């Protein structure tokens, strides 16, 4: 493959550990990642992974969910989290609920098999980038937050109204709302919003931002008046007015 295709900026050799019980997949993924500048080790199961971890802790683990012996979820619960390596869960189950379970036990991201290799590469890079940067407000918020009686679950991507009714958000709307709750009570320009909202988990954010804002307002039952949650600041952008607190 032509190296320029990925527009790869070679990162000072970051270490990735690929844990999968299928030898073919182990070799293919590690070759692919190695071609894009990563130092890759492999392990066939949890025990082998522990030995690799003992030798040297990687920056990131690509972890198959279904492993012989100790399964991926349990491994993730054990080695994931703040101090440990970043974890990208790789699973053949590929259901939305599996994704949520994976993220809830501490995985940084979740990729469904059969995955597009370039998508996996993009996710690996994004997760590593997020880890490198100082903890973002998103991480400060943890799994969820509250504002004006509303609750936003950042893992389940679920919004609940003050009455407790689940309000479904498209991925674009969710990314936008996340950008707002991470930067509350501050005027955000359209460009800033676009930057913040185009996180690694936002796949679809092509629509004009104003359309997304109006959809979001409708779902937040927001009239767009003076008491509005999302206020329009003339010639500047938008301001998310409520106080945002970390969910208990």
């Amino acid at each position: 493959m032509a190296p320029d295709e990925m527009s790869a900026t070679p990162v000072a050799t970051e270490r990735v550990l690929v844990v999968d019980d299928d030898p073919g997949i182990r070799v293919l993924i590690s070759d692919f990642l190695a071609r894009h500048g990563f130092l890759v080790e492999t392990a066939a199961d949890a025990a082998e992974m522990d030995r690799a971890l003992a030798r040297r802790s990687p920056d990131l683990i690509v972890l198959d969910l279904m492993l012989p012996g100790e399964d991926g979820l349990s491994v993730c619960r054990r080695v994931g989290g703040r101090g440990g390596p970043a974890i990208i869960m790789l699973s053949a189950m590929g259901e939305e609920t599996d994704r949520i379970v994976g993220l809830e036990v501490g995985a940084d991201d979740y990729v469904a098999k059969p995955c597009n290799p370039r998508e996996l590469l993009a996710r690996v890079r994004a997760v590593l980038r997020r880890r490198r940067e100082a903890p973002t407000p998103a991480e400060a918020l943890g799994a969820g937050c509250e504002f004006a009686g509303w609750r936003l679950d950042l893992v389940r991507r679920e919004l609940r109204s003050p009455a407790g009714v689940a309000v479904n958000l498209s991925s674009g709307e969710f990314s936008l709302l996340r950008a707002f709750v991470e930067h509350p009570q501050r005027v955000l320009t359209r460009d800033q919003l676009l930057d913040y909202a185009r996180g690694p988990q936002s796949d679809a954010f092509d629509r004009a931002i104003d359309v997304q804002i109006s959809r979001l307002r409708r779902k937040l039952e927001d009239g767009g008046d003076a008491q509005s949650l999302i206020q329009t600041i003339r010639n500047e952008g938008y301001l998310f007015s409520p106080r945002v607190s970390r969910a208990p």
Partner: protein
Amino acid sequence: MNRLPATPLFIQTLGLVIATLLAAQVAALVVILSLPTPQPEIYTVSDVAAAIRHAGAPATPEGRALTIRVENHPPGGGTEGRRRLEFRAALAAALGVDPARLVVAQPGLRILAFKGGSSPPIRSEQPLLFGGFLVGMERADGRWTIIRPAGVIGLDPWRQRVLLALVLAVLAVSPLAWLFARRLAAPMAAFAAGAERLGRDPRAAPLDIAGSPEVASAVRSFNVMQERLARYVEDRTAMVGAIAHDLRTPLTRLRFRIEAAPEALRGELAADIEEMDQMISATLAFVRGAARPSPHGPVDLASVVETVIDEAALTGARTFVERAERVVVDGDTLGLKRLFANLVNNAVSFGREATAKVFADEGMAVVEIDDAGPGMPETEMETAFEPFRRLEASRSRNTGGIGLGLAVVRAIARAHGGEVTLSNRPAGGLRARVTLPLAL
């Protein structure tokens, strides 16, 4: 009553029948023994004489009345027999008239002479008449005064008392019988309700119904059956899950291997892999829809439909929301999203565009997804929901899929206590209408 649940249904029923029979017999016995002996209808000479003298009908001690009428002819069946002759003589003496002017007749001859050793119920110095009789006395004008016992209206008093006693006995036994019958029937009703619940939700808790050994054994068998069914569904789900997993592993390898293929070939192969993966996803969604419990809670239905429509529009499909009322249903967001995504996908694939309406109607939340396609023959509207069913139009147009979309839609709708129907719109195009119960 605590011992009752352990008693077999057979014994309980037998006991109920025998106990009822006994109770009825006892009630009858009590009535027979406790009521006064019914008095024969006895009329003395003085009764009849007084009636004639006063031209009225004085009540006799037994409450029987006599009526007086004037007729042109004497009563038929003239005086014969010793008793009647004695009675006539005594009556003539009492009234002071010629016995020839009197006629004593008993048409429905019920007269019984008290002979010999038989003891009469009433001892009397004067001759008596029993039962129905007619006494005629010739008047001065040649017509006849006729005296007879007043006909009893309805039942005799003693018959009335017996009836009343029997009705009271039935009333007294009824509550007991009702309780008994209910005890017998209640486990059956609970059983039926439980079976209904399990039919809707195979993961419902096993039945726990106290009752007779027969009911208990039926409940046990039923619970075992449910367990087997649940295990069967679980096995099937696990098997399909395993197949999906095993299929996706080589697909993943393929996906990485084709990275080395020429660009043109890679695109086509990737599309094939994508299609196979879609089939696996659809199959997984179908078996999981039937097997997996999902978290339930209040969901803003319009927000789900709007999201589905928006996300479809992002892929370039012509999808619109025409009406979005805020209706809240109790459900699982992901399941509902899949339901409407399948319908919108069908509408876009077969009907060019999808127009969604969300509203409340008659206590139900309604979502209608309309398309602008050719519609569907009425005969295929029911079979369209069957798993692995693909309409000819779909096969020939090679629209992909393996015929699980609508099956999944219906499974999810029913799991939410709702229903989905298809209809052809008068204006053209197909309408899918989903109704779900509103959250309380």
